[in-house]
């Protein structure tokens, strides 16, 4: 693609992210359709039909990262939502109301204008919405509310929770395959034309190439010292979420992988020689405090190299094999048993040679918090590494305390360095 010729990975990330938002906003004027989708839903089906996909979670993360969350969260609470509800959903549902108000009155509500001023990209209202509950069950309720508020069709890919480690039950695969077939019918109904199965294969092939490039780039985190700084995972994540079935992801991650390989070969690492310890970060970023959480770790020489996010989007399947695609979406890390999660995290830590792990007890996310205590103990035993946890929230700035975070990571740092010293002296 000539538009991105000569750009480095970071520039491509910025270019493509903006392009997707811009294209989505221009869609309706071109008579094209827009879909709101959860972060690990089957983009393949929608991309095949040329439907622009917008990701409310990504958008909410941007609102949080650019410090626009507080006021909009309060708007959601005025509607009757509580602080207990996932902050991504609160932000999105309030943002949706603002867009509806703007459409109805022709005037931009002040709260929306403020977000525009903060350079938070606009997203258009959707013609259809899709969710896959592989990341959580809250999506079912959140999107149920969008569907009834906007009166739009909803595509549900309900992936039954895999409550035992091992093979995914055939009944789940069959059920999800039937739902994929139904989703194809639903997009045909929306677009008023038949589904192009040949294009579908091509889109699946692109998806696999994008994922392969993502795997390669993310895999560089296992180099010691790492050329990849873990917070890069959080930053680049946007593109594997919103461009998984597009060339954009393949382009950007191939470039990123090359850059990282060059750095590794030249012995250049992310902390410029300052990496003292390597940690896994279990959970999502604290978007409103990205800078503080990163700088505090860097100051202690703690590089975050381990994360389950890379593998979450690493959904491998043979293009054309709908059953395999179903299994891929069902088997996403967040949809699996405690035992499997312990396996995955331990493997990540082993591959990326982590000396410790930090748990984000996310106020917004029960799926990422309720099993943390057991995970801490089991993973610690398995990998023989120390852990620490802190209280935070993905986008609600009121649920995080810098002082608490600093104290906890300092303690973890001290323990890890102690362990390393002990090993060296042994």
């Amino acid at each position, binding site marked *: 693609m000539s538009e991105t010729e000569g750009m480095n990975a970071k520039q491509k990330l910025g270019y493509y992210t903006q392009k997707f938002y811009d294209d989505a906003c221009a869609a309706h004027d071109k008579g094209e359709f827009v879909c709101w989708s959860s972060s690990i839903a089957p983009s393949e089906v929608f991309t095949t039909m040329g439907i622009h996909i917008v990701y409310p979670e990504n958008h909410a993360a941007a609102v949080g990262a650019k410090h626009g969350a507080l006021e909009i969260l*309060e708007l959601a*609470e*005025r509607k*009757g939502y509580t*602080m207990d509800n996932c902050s991504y959903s609160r932000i999105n549902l309030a943002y949706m109301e603002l867009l509806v108000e703007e459409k109805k009155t022709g005037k931009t509500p002040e709260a929306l204008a403020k977000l525009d001023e903060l350079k938070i990209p606009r997203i258009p209202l959707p013609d259809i919405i899709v969710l896959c509950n592989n990341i959580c069950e809250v999506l079912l309720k959140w999107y149920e509310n969008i569907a009834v508020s906007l009166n739009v069709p909803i595509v549900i890919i309900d992936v039954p929770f895999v409550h035992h480690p091992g093979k995914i039950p055939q009944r789940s695969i069959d059920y999800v395959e039937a739902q994929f077939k139904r989703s194809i019918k639903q997009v045909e109904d929306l677009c008023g034309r038949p589904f192009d199965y040949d294009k579908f294969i091509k889109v699946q092939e692109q998806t696999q190439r994008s994922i392969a490039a993502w795997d390669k780039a993310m895999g560089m985190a296992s180099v010691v010292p790492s050329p990849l700084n873990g917070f890069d995972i959080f930053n680049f994540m946007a593109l594997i979420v919103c461009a998984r079935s597009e060339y954009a992801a393949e382009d950007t991650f191939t470039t990123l992988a090359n850059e990282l390989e060059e750095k590794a070969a030249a012995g250049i690492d992310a902390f410029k020689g300052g990496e003292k310890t390597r940690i896994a970060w279990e959970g999502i970023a604290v978007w409103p405090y990205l800078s503080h959480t990163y700088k505090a770790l860097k100051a202690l020489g703690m590089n975050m190299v381990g994360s389950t996010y890379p593998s979450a989007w690493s959904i491998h399947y043979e293009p054309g094999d709908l059953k395999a695609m179903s299994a891929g979406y069902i088997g996403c890390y967040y949809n699996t048993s405690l035992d499997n999660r312990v396996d995955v995290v331990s493997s990540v830590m082993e591959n990326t040679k982590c000396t410790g792990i930090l748990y984000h007890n996310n106020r917004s996310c029960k799926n990422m918090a309720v099993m943390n205590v057991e995970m801490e103990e089991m993973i610690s035993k398995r990998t023989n590494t120390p852990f620490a946890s802190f209280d935070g929230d993905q986008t609600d700035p*009121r*649920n995080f*305390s810098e*002082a608490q975070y600093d104290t906890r990571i300092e303690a973890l740092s001290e323990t890890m360095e102690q362990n390393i010293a002990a090993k060296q002296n042994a």
Partner: protein
Amino acid sequence: MYTLGIDVGSASSKVVILEDGEKVVASSVFQVGTGSSGPERALKEAFEKSGLGYEDMAKIVATGYGRYSFAKADKQISEISCHAKGIFHLIPTARTIIDIGGQDAKAIRLDSRGMVNQFFMNDKCAAGTGRFLEVMARVLEIDIKEMAEYDARATEVVNVSSTCTVFAESEVISHLSNNIPKENIIAGIHASVASKACGLAYRTGLEDDIVMGGGVAQNAGVVRAISRELRRPVIVAPHPQITGALGAALFAYDEAKKH
């Protein structure tokens, strides 16, 4: 005819003696609440001021958290109804009431007859209540009554958490150690309390006039912060701390007229 209203809150006891449902002949406030000598002392003072006694009271109505522990009441009525009644009596144009007490905060929507239409409460959390201000005043080592004055001299509203009193406390300490002037920290504390109260108030639809009652309404800094947040004028009811007891005394008058 004399009627008596007593508001036994968790942090304070208030008494109003009313003549013919119109004139306040005596009122008293004691900064100790239910389960203490507060109610008795407030009563004693009100009786002394008015030269009246129990036998002169046609009816007595109790309200507030401790209303059921006051044996001599003829009736117990909730503080939502009593604050609404009291404030509407003082300000008949009141349609939205914001009341911040020692341990809770409420927003009440009234109709044109002064009847309660809807109400929203926060009674599970110290943030946004008088208790929050007490804790912060202690951290700043100033008298809670001086907070409004300090606020008036603020040059900036510093960020203070409105969710968790413990987090907010550590933020205030952190601001102090960064040499942020107390005036600006206090402005932030007031904004934090205002934000909680406004969260409740928005649910009412915010019809004018917006009137504040309750002990914290005596803090001009908080009132200003609420008015700023809502971008609307906010009237402070006269003697805001006794509006609940006044409402109770009015209800007592209604009761007395019935018999």
